[in-house]
Every structure is written in structure tokens, then in C-alpha cells.
């Protein structure tokens, strides 16, 4: 054992050295895939003992002795599908001898015991026989999948109703079905030293900027943690600026949204065990696009999109604006409105700043309570919170009518954003603006907004400016930002993702010219 210990220590030092080397250049293979050197012995019992000692005598590791103890199958009974095992191994040899198992069509061989443990953990069954060092293994993983359903938080009226599930292979399949092209590339990574989570990045070779692809690969291979649960973990490890309140990668559960973004030259990151996929590089305005926009007439699409962008201003600015008006700039209200406004706020004991903070926090409470509870109770909370509290608080003279209207509008506006991440960001940004408005009026709001604008301009997502196409200004890309012009006119991909191929379509409505010329 002393020999082994020394051997293993030596190995790990070498591994460290290699890890250091990877910091400078991108490894061909990620470092976790380095094979270890414990090769199998010709003694069946030695092999099995080694497996059991390595797997810490866990209760669900089963050995099935065959051929009077001269051969054995080893597997985790909690990971394998017994029916598959029956079909792949026992049915073909029903008539013959156990010794024919290694020759079965689905089998693969190796001699490394540590590699074999990894296979064991990913749901393979191992076959050992006496007097031979080879290990034969079969893939008999059991998987229990949710069916492909429409994601609850990203519903659309028209268009595909499919959504990602927790299985990464199904998810990649959903994208491959949408993009039948040989340049669609999927790259797998294993992340998480203990969880060994399968991560995939998906992109179009020849459209996506290789520099950005390289950056994402580099950042994913740099992750060195025990547990990676979902894209949320990965996002924090690979995003550019963790101190920014703005999400720098788009989270989505919709395959159509992912494939559209892949076709724009962006890169999708998916993880086993989570239906959410991340899209990078992202820009601020991507969070305001929804697949629905492209399934409507373009006038309606434009209209809806403008409403969403207005909702951005309402969500972060309306309470602040209202507070600034009632506490600093009362003269902004036209003469006819002064009496109703004044009579509404006159009897309120608290300053508008406190009123607004209380109401915004109450709304957040109701929202958070509603999410965590089962849906029938959630609705009750909504009614109790929204109607009862809202009404009672006004009657009690604690909060003014107008403040309720303002805060309710703000809350609704913040839910208009198609992305949950950005919506929470907006609600968070309301607070500093409320404080600034309550202390400095319009000037405070202006400085707050200027600060946010500077921050957005400064922010980058994988080396791509986040606030594109506004800053840096790109007039050509505005056509899919504030408006949604007819699809046949969007013949160029947006510049922000640095696509290597700009042209996305050639003349698609040639037939019109042809018909007219007749």
C-alpha cells in the first residue's frame, strides 16, 4: 500500500503541474479526464475488492456472480435499468455460455479500474472474468425524464410550445432538430469535482466568433468546485462582472429562443439536471425580446416591444418620479390636477419616501409569498395582499391612493419584462432611485439614471458591449431593438455578438418583383 500511496501522491503533483499549465493555454482535454493508472488485475476477487474499497462499501453497489464465481457483473442497482440489462446482456446469451459476454455487440473494453469506477458511477455495468485483466462494460443507465412541456415562466401565444427538460441529451436533441446543419457544434465538459456534472456548449461553427467560444471554454474549464448544480452556478463562475446587478447571460428554457440566438452567432451553455440554458454573449435589449414578437404582424410586434421598453422606464423610474413631484416639484402638476393630488396626500402622516418604501416592500412580500406557496394558496395571498391590504391601508389613512396606483403600476411594469432575472434587477434598482428622488428630486433621479447608463455602457458580456446597439451606437441593429421590422429586411445578423458571417439571408421576396414585372 505504501507503494501505492507514494505513487498516487506523485501522480497528483504531476496533475497540479498540468493544471497550472492549463491556465496559459487551452487544454485539448479538460484536466478531469486525465486517466489514472490503477490497472485491473487478473484476479477477479482483487478487482472486486478494489472496487468496493474505492466505493466505500456502499450498499447499492451489487455484484452478481456468474459461472460459479468465475465471472461477475458489478453495478449500482440504483443507477441501472434492469430491463436494459436483461435486454443487452442476458437475452443474447440465453442459450450460450457466460464467456461470450465480452463479445456482445454493445460491449466496450478497458483495463483501468479507476476509469471503470467512473463508468460505474455514470450507470454502466461492469463485467469481470477470472484470469483476464479486461473489463467489459455496457451502458444500461436508467433515466427518468419529465416530458417536454411548455415552460411555465416563458409562455408564448403563438409558436413552439416545447421547453427544455432536465436531461441534457434531450435538450441538445431539441436544438439539433431545429438546426439541421453540420456546423452545429456541441462540446461537453465535466464540471464539479464531486458532482461531475455534464455541461454542454452549443454553437454554430462559422457564425459564432471563435474568440468568444474560446473564452467560454476557457472559463468553464477553469471552474474548480465540488458542486455545480445548475446554470446559475456556472453563470456566476464565468460571467464578466459579478458585482453588477444586471444579468449578463440570458436564461431561457425555450429551445426556439436558444436556436434563434445560436443562429445569431451566440453560444448556449447547458447543464445536466437543469432545464435552463444560458446564452452568451448577451445584451441588455435581448432581455426584452420574446419569440412571440416574431409570430405577430410586425406592427403589433413593434408596438408590444415598445410597451415593454416603456415598462423598463416605468419600473425603475415611476415611484421615483412621483416622489420627486410630490415632495420637491409640486409645480409640475398642472392646475386642474393640483386639488385632487393634494387632497389625496394631504392627510397622510408619513412623507412620500416612507410611503413608497413601505408599499414597494409590501408588494415584494406578497410576490415572494405567492411564489413559494402552492398555486391555490398563492392566489389567496394575492387577493388578501393586493385587495385587502391595498384597500385597508388607504382607508386607514396610512398610504395615499395615488401611491397605491403608482406602486401597483410599477409592479406590473416590472413583470412585463420577459426575463425573470432582469425583472428582479429592475425592482432592486427602484430603491436607490426612490432614495435619490426623495432627497434631491429630479436632479437626484437624473444622476441615478446617469449612473445606471454609465454602468450599462461600461458592462461587457464576454468582451461584447452589453448596452449595444445603443452604446456603441449601431444604427443598423436598432431595427430589432426598439422596433421589429419585417423579417425579410433583417438580412444581417446583429453586430454585437461578432458573428463571422454577417449576412443572414439573401433576397427572400424576389417573387414580388417577378410578379410585378410580368
Amino acid at each position, binding site marked *: 500500500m505504501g507503494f501505492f500511496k507514494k505513487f498516487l501522491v506523485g501522480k497528483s503533483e504531476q496533475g497540479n503541474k498540468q493544471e497550472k499549465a492549463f491556465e496559459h493555454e487551452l487544454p485539448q482535454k479538460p484536466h478531469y479526464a486525465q486517466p489514472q493508472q490503477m490497472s485491473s488485475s487478473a484476479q477477479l476477487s482483487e478487482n472486486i475488492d478494489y472496487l468496493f474499497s474505492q466505493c466505500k462499501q456502499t450498499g447499492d453497489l451489487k455484484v452478481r456472480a456468474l459461472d460459479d464465481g468465475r465471472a461477475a457483473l458489478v453495478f449500482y442497482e440504483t443507477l441501472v435499468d434492469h430491463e436494459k440489462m436483461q435486454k443487452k446482456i442476458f437475452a443474447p446469451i440465453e442459450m450460450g455460455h457466460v464467456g461470450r459476454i465480452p463479445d456482445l455487440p454493445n460491449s466496450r473494453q478497458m483495463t483501468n479500474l479507476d476509469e471503470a469506477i467512473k463508468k460505474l458511477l455514470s450507470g454502466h455495468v461492469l463485467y469481470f472474468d477470472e484470469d483476464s485483466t479486461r473489463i467489459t462494460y455496457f451502458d444500461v443507465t436508467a433515466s427518468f425524464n419529465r416530458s417536454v412541456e411548455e415552460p411555465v415562466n416563458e409562455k408564448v401565444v403563438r409558436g413552439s410550445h416545447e421547453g427544455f427538460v432536465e436531461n441534457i441529451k434531450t435538450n441538445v436533441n431539441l436544438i439539433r432538430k431545429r438546426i439541421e446543419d453540420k456546423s452545429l457544434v456541441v462540446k461537453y465538459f465535466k464540471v464539479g469535482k464531486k458532482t461531475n456534472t455534464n455541461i454542454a456548449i452549443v454553437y454554430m461553427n462559422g457564425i459564432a466568433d471563435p474568440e468568444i467560444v474560446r473564452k467560454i471554454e476557457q472559463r468553464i474549464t477553469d471552474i474548480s468546485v465540488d458542486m455545480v448544480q445548475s446554470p446559475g452556478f456556472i453563470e456566476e463562475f464565468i460571467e464578466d462582472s459579478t458585482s453588477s446587478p444586471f444579468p449578463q447571460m440570458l436564461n431561457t428554457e425555450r429551445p426556439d429562443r436558444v436556436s434563434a440566438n445560436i443562429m445569431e452567432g451566440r453560444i448556449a451553455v447547458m447543464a445536466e439536471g437543469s432545464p435552463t440554458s444560458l446564452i452568451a454573449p448577451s445584451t441588455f435589449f435581448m432581455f426584452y425580446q420574446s419569440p412571440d414578437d416574431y409570430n405577430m404582424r410586425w406592427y403589433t410586434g413593434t408596438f408590444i416591444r415598445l410597451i415593454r421598453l416603456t415598462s423598463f422606464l416605468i419600473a425603475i423610474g415611476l415611484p421615483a418620479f412621483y416622489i420627486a413631484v410630490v415632495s*420637491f*416639484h409640486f*409645480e*409640475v*402638476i*398642472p*392646475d*386642474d390636477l393640483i386639488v385632487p393630488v393634494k387632497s389625496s396626500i394631504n392627510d397622510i402622516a408619513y412623507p412620500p419616501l416612507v410611503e413608497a418604501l413601505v408599499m414597494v416592500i409590501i408588494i415584494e412580500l406578497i410576490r415572494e409569498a405567492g411564489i413559494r406557496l402552492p398555486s391555490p394558496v398563492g392566489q389567496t395571498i394575492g387577493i388578501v395582499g393586493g385587495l385587502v391590504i391595498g384597500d385597508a391601508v388607504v382607508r386607514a389613512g396610512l398610504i395615499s391612493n395615488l401611491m397605491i396606483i403608482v406602486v401597483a403600476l410599477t409592479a406590473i411594469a416590472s413583470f412585463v419584462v420577459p426575463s425573470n432575472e432582469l425583472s428582479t434587477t429592475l425592482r432592486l434598482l427602484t430603491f436607490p432611485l426612490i432614495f435619490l428622488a426623495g*432627497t*434631491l*428630486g*429630479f*436632479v*437626484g*433621479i*437624473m*444622476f441615478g439614471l*446617469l*449612473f445606471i*447608463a*454609465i*454602468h450599462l*455602457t*461600461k458592462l461587457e458580456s464576454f468582451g461584447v*458591449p452589453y*448596452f449595444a446597439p*445603443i*452604446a*456603441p*451606437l449601431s444604427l443598423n441593429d436598432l431595427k430589432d431593438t426598439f422596433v421589429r421590422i419585417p423579417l425579410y429586411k433583417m438580412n444581417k445578423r446583429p453586430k454585437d455578438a461578432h458573428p463571422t458571417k454577417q449576412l443572414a439571408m439573401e433576397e427572400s421576396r424576389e417573387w414580388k418583383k417577378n410578379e410585378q414585372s410580368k
Partner: protein
Amino acid sequence: MSSQSKPMISRRQFFFIIVQTEIGVGVLSMPYDLHGIAKQDGWISLLITAFSLLIILFLLWMLAKRHPSLNFFQILERVFSKWPGKFIIVAYIIYFTSVSVLIVLLFGRMLSLWVLPSTPFWVLSILMVSVCLYLTASGLKIIARLYTSLSLFLFILIFLMVFCFSELEILYILPVAQSGWINIVKGANEGLLSYFGFIVTLVIYTYVEGKPKDKFKTVFWAHCFVTCFYLFVVLVSFTFFSTKEIALVQEPVLYMLKSFQFPIIARIDLFFLSIWVVSVATSFATYLFMTGMGLQTVFQKQSSILVTLAAISIFIISIFFGFESERLELLGNVVVFLGYAFGIFIPIFTLCISALRFKAKKEGGKQSE
């Protein structure tokens, strides 16, 4: 300094940097100042200022063109050799700092007069300085991007003023040239304060992409844009208020907008003022940036600590100075005087020296890189 690591900006961004730097704190009081000397002919003074500045801008361009790969401070070091160059740079840093202080003070005074009478000045000063420091520390590229998108606000300013068109009276600017040409030329001096940002063309010239000729075209059009904007403001104020009235209103544009009321909103002057805050911030940020750049050249160090130090000192000076009218006027006069020296005479002097020193080897600037 290799040209590879330089942050390059496009000519469109250059255009907007010039515009945003020039249009700033002066826009509200400029009609009043012009009127104080040239009466209703103030707009002619403005045109004279604009035209003479064009010649100066051409000379500045000549200087920058001679040393295409150096920024202004490096040019100074090169032309005057190391230590005298550094001395002049320090003088420039003091000049830029004093302009920044003046901007913050004028800004604070305007706000306390119009919207925030009881807010202590240090609050406004700290807001302005910290927001602009955040911007300046992000580098030229971010500044350029932001200015380009913020320029939308300039059009909103113009749009707000368009509401007054129905009330304008062209007769107020007649008769033309009544106040006499001497006064008109004197009035040109008043207009200069609003244009002082023009020095930025020289300072960041080397970071702009494109051929020298195209760059000058950009400078030219930016200058034209600013002149048109100012002319618009001046003419609207001069025709809205009569010659006698305007002598009483220090901020004609705001008073003009104040008199309008719409069914949904009254007092557009407050909105105008809020947007004006952004214009002031952009001018201030550019001066802060130039100060930081000067400090970095002097100390040969690329670090944001220097800019932070500059910002803190501007903040402290502005608080101790305060914005009493008389002291502010004194500072204003000093800054105008310094503006002639640092914006016009020193660059032209530098151009002469540079022409004498580097006559023989015209490509000297390029070879040394």
C-alpha cells in the same frame, strides 16, 4: 506608447465628444451674457466667436497632425523637451482643474437657485464629482460610447424649445448691428466661455481613427453643430424676450419655458434643467478626464488613483470656494483669461516651436514611435 494598446474611437464618437464637451454649463446663461454687451446683436457676436474659433481649431489640428501618434501632453513634452514640457503640463492640469471647479460651482449655483434652495452645496458637488469619476475611470472608449447615446438628450432640449415658436417676435432682434461693431466684437469674448471645451479636439486627437483630413472634417462639423445649437438658443431667447426684458432674466431659456403649461404637465423648465444636468456632467467628465490624462503623463503611470485624487481635490476646492456671486464672477474671469492662454496662445506657440524644431525631419514624430 505603442499605438496597439491605445483605445481608439470612431469619428462619430469624436464628433459627439466635442459636442457634449462644448455644450455644457454655459448654455443657460449665454444669451444673457451676450446680451449684456452686444444687446440684440449678441447673435452676431456668437457667429464671430464661432468663426474665429474655427481658425484656431484649424491651427490646433495643424499641431496635432504634426505629431499623429502622440497625445497633446506628449506633444508638449516632446516639443519643449522633458522638464519644461512637464512644467507646462502641470500648468494645464491646474487650468483644467480650475475649469472643472468653475463648472461644478456654476452648476451648484444654478440648481440652488432653481430647484434645490436648501440642499447644501457639498451634496450636489459630491454627486457630480463621484458620478463623473465613475465615468472617467472607465476610460475614453466608454466615455465616447456614452456621449454618443446621451446626445439624444440634445434633441429633446431643442424639441422643448420648439414649443415657444408661436410666441416669438422677430422684430426684437431688429435693427441689426445697432449696438455698434465694437460692442459686438467685445460680446464675442462672452461667447467664448461656452466654447471652451474645444481644447478636447487637440487632447484626444491621436485616439481617433481615420485620416487627418477626415478628422478635421469631423471637428468642423461638430463645431458647426454646436454653433447652430447655440445660435438657436440665442435667437429663440432674443426673440421671445424683448431687449429690455432680457436684461432682467439671467436664464432666459428657463424663464421662457416656465411660462408654458400643458394639460398633462406644467413647468417644462424643470425637465429642461434636468436634462441640462446631463450636459453639464458630460462637460465636467471630459475636463476631469483631461486632468487625469495630464497627471498620468506627468507621473508616467496608468492608474485611476491619479484621477481619483484630481476628483477629490476638485471637490474640496469647490466646497471651500463656495458660490457667492462676486467670487464666482472673479473665477469666471480668471478662467476666461486662462482659456485664452491655454486654449489658444500656448497651442499656437507650441505649433511655432514644433515647426521650427522639426522642420528638417517632418516625419520625426512617426519615426520616434
